[in-house]
């Protein structure tokens, strides 16, 4: 398996956010991670991309670039959209000086077009709406054609049409580059349209794993509560550290 996680555990200030989590993702597969706010979804992605240290457990990831789309975009606010998207191509060792300015312009224009935002190369991040920033950060993450893509809520805060554009894009990217992806999301449409497998996190544990169809059937207490968005059920908001 290209991504294999075994018994991953992570604590923050004595609270176990992830408690012995295991899952794996096959090549070209899209795994969705769902769960309440604060259940540790972003933490999983950050550990996979090497931004956070794990406390214990085993992670094996095949050779290849890991790209991450951040939950709050994390665009470089002193650089314009062009420099943001071409950042890796301009500054990373193996790409430096590989492309001419014209080629860079072409690449950036193309990737902006695919996320539906042509012609905003000269704008700065503060001039963009939240949803636009999100799409620019998506374009920035995948400009190097990575083998693994971790999306942290790629469609949160987007209107339904823009969401569909992003979902289509995630699928197309997978078909074109055989990228292996993990998508953290709350959005039902993203789960059903994009993912091959779903896992649900709650209180540090995986309480459901299966296909999107199984999730939608709502046969276990957890999935039932998730799809009906009910406050009644086994999952309590307090346990996710919100109260």
């Amino acid at each position, binding site marked *: 398996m290209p991504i294999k996680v075994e018994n991953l555990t992570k604590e923050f200030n004595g609270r176990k956010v992830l408690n012995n989590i295991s899952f794996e993702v096959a090549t070209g597969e899209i795994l969705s991670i769902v769960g309440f706010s604060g259940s540790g979804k972003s933490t999983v992605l950050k550990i996979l991309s*090497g931004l956070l240290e794990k406390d214990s457990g085993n992670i094996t990831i095949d050779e290849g670039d890991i790209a*991450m789309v951040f939950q709050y975009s994390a665009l470089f606010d002193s650089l314009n959209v062009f420099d943001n998207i071409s950042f890796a191509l301009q500054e990373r060792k193996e790409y430096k000086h590989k492309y001419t300015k014209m080629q860079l312009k072409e690449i950036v224009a193309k990737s902006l077009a695919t996320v539906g935002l042509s012609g905003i190369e000269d704008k700065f991040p503060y001039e963009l709406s939240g949803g636009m920033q999100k799409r620019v950060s998506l374009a920035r*993450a995948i400009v190097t054609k990575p083998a693994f893509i971790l999306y942290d809520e790629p469609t949160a805060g987007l209107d339904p049409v823009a969401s569909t554009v992003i979902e289509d894009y995630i699928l197309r990217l997978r078909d074109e580059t055989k990228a292996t992806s993990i998508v953290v999301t709350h959005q039902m449409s993203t789960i059903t349209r994009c993912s091959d497998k779903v896992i649900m996190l709650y209180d540090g544990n995986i309480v459901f794993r299966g296909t999107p169809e199984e999730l939608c059937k709502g046969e276990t207490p957890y999935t039932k509560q998730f799809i009906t968005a009910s406050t009644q059920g086994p999952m309590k908001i307090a346990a996710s550290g919100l109260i």
Partner: protein
Amino acid sequence: MEKVRFFLEQTITYKILTLFLSHVKDFLEIFGTISYRFFQVLKYLCTLQINYKQVIEQSSRFAVDSLPITLSIVIMTSVILSMQISPELVKQGGKDFIGLLIALTMVREIGVIMSGFAIISMIGSSQASELATMKVTEQIDAMKSLKVSPFKYLFLPRVIAGVITMPFVVVIASACGIIAGGLTSMAAGKDVTWLCYVTSVWQGLYIRDINIMLFKSACIGGAISLISSSCGYEAKGGAKGVGNATTKAVVLSFVAIVIIDCIFAIAFYI
């Protein structure tokens, strides 16, 4: 036992003590980080892993942003100094020493120190808050995930810019300070001519002093950037974290300037 502890924890002495200890711990931590960053800078310099484009950009920003405030502070200090000593020296028959005195103080002390203070407030604080904001908004994480070293792209160029730009700024500021001092002394002290001022300045300028000034300002420029960037880089936790990092950077830089100045005074003038 529990009760005693609970009672103790309520007392003011206990609260002050724990607050004090936590500040000491904070200080030791940041001191450790700064030393660590210092050696990291040396390592990258020795292996020549330098982003020249960023160095040039940061240096020009350093110079352009700092010159107006540095010039005005150094010139004002020199004008005030000259205003106070010129009439007195003229009265005591020492009008030939005005230039010497101003040149000596400018080159040995005031030029560097005042520029340092100006640069902390202008450059240090902005470097700290910029890096801190990038840290808390995950921009530094994003850079790491794009496989570009934030240390090489953000940190090192700022430190190098401090080392190479500060001497220029100080030289310009001191020169302007000396000229302004002369003009003031001509206005304030009777019989002081430009020629007599310049001759006297010439007597007070030593190559050794100027070399030491350049060396000292490079050290101070590097220290300000190193401290400010380190504090920014270690920031955590939202807007408050950015504020804390900036405060820490400014305070520590002030202390560092005084310490460096003291070391130089002991090493070269005793």
